[in-house]
């Protein structure tokens, strides 16, 4: 995935192009037996076409809840949230996004190609179109020669790549990823991070990426959203000054260390806020 290839479509020069996801004063409260839990409080954020935005913060900071709200898997209790100018639910029905979870969630009774084919079958793509799309996305995640294998024949990292291919297969412009590499070891994680950067550069997708790894967030993102818990809120938004072309070694650079430091400070500040309150 990390070999240079011609881009499939022009990548927008400026990351702050047309807004794709807009949140205005979004709050989300879960009622529980111990009283309401404020998973999100007054979140304001605009994500532009082709941005790679990471959400980082400790457990309970609402990063996953915010991603799920964008995907219309949760409904905000107040505020305004639009995806491609529509309500999240309308966007979901218009297949605006592909979602990747922490676990690959592949069906053991389907081959890798069969798993990638599943959303396409559900969405009613015809057979020839399906074949073509499966071949294209499996090539994109470098699993072409494993199309006929079953999930249990593949390593964890390969399974997660297959689940990314599945999310890409129906050409949604937005890719939402909820700690997709959280369960993988660091070496595999590095490779997949590199591959994901390359995939993003090739396809120009808008990516929302939840993580609790600082290096992962800094390496991947054009923008890093730092969040803190109780109530879940945004404490800092960091524009990455790192160049578009990022070899893994960039993580040893001074700029990388500076951004990492700022993210860490943001996380610490959010934490002490809570301690004072």
């Amino acid at each position, binding site marked *: 995935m990390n070999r240079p290839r011609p881009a499939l479509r022009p990548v927008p020069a400026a990351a702050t192009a047309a807004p794709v996801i807009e949140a205005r004063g979004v709050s989300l409260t879960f009622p529980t037996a111990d009283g309401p839990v404020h998973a999100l409080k007054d979140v304001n954020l605009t994500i532009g076409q082709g941005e790679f935005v990471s959400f980082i913060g400790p457990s309970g900071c609402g990063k996953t809840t915010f991603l799920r709200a964008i995907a219309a*898997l949760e409904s905000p209790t107040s505020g305004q949230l639009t995806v491609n100018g529509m309500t999240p639910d309308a966007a979901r029905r218009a*297949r605006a996004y*592909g979602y990747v*979870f922490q676990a690959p*969630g592949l*069906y053991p*009774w389907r081959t890798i190609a069969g798993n990638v084919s599943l959303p396409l079958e*559900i969405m009613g793509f015809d057979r020839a179109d399906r074949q073509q799309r499966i071949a294209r996305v499996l090539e994109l995640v470098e699993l072409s020669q494993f199309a006929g294998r079953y999930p*249990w024949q593949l390593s964890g990292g390969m399974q997660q790549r297959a689940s990314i291919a599945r999310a890409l297969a129906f050409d949604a412009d937005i890719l939402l990823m909820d700690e997709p590499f959280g369960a993988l070891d660091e070496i595999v994680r590095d490779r997949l991070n590199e591959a994901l950067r390359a995939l993003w550069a090739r396809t120009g997708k808008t990516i929302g990426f939840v993580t609790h790894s600082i290096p992962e967030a800094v390496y991947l993102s054009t923008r890093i959203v730092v969040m803190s818990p109780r109530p879940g809120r945004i404490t800092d938004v960091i524009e990455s000054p790192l160049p578009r072309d990022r070899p893994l070694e960039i993580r040893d650079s001074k700029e990388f260390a500076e951004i990492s430091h700022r993210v860490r400070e943001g996380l610490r500040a959010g934490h002490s806020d809570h301690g004072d309150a």
Partner: protein
Amino acid sequence: MHDPAVPTGIVAASAARRGRGLGKAGRAIMPVLAVLGAIVVAWYLAAVWMNAPWVRDQAARAGETVTAGQVVRATMAQERPVLPAPHQVAAGLWDGVTGQKITSKRSLVWHGWITLSATLAGFALGSAAGILLAVGIVHSRVMDLSIMPWAVASQTVPILAIAPMVIVVLASMGVTGLLPKALISAWLSFFPVLVGMVKGLRAPDPMQFDLMRSWNAGGGQVLRHLRLPSSLPWLFASLKVAIAAALVGTIVGELPAGATQGLGARLLSGSYYGQTIQIWSALFAAAILAAALVWLIGAIERVTLRRMGLAR
């Protein structure tokens, strides 16, 4: 030069190998054979103990004295023993299966087939009803709240009381033969399938349902692609219970007076005429049939789940 621990290690290893000499299948079958042996011994002892009074009575009436050895021998070969000895039941079973033309009314194969056909029909009917109701319950809250209590209530009604009514009512409407028995059989077999499938259809984890939602999949698509395939382990487990229950239902359906066909009728006529060997032979025929049916479903289960990658 040599480490003295090495030969000891080899001895220990070979001892361990000797312990495993029976192989995996052998080790699995030994406890089964031991239990079977214990049952047969207990059965013989019980046969002697329960049949002896009749032997002594007969001897007393004839004014003869019998030795203990003669009593034991006589208890093994009565025509209508209180408890037939295992070898008598085995002989009765063998004669019923191989000693008769299979079209004969004395053939256990013929009676077995009558029972089997009604069992399979009832099982198919009951399983289909169980699966359909489970699908309804999983998709409709109203059905979830309304069906389940009735399904549970249906199983608390004593089937032995219901069965004759079903047979008699249907017979008065001109419906006889396989169908009434199949209905009773279905009555007993739908319940385990219903309970198992409700559990199975709800088994996929929330993430799988979220994925389906992110693809804007409809209820039917979620059912076909996610719920039904994931429910198969539960389905097979409940089918094994259901087929045994279906056989019991059929036999109960064959018991009401007038039935002349099937293992149930064979049990009943045996008890009318004090033909204990006939009763026990029919009983064992039914047990063997049930075991074979459960084994068959288990075999289908193993093959299917392995092919689907769901086997543990």
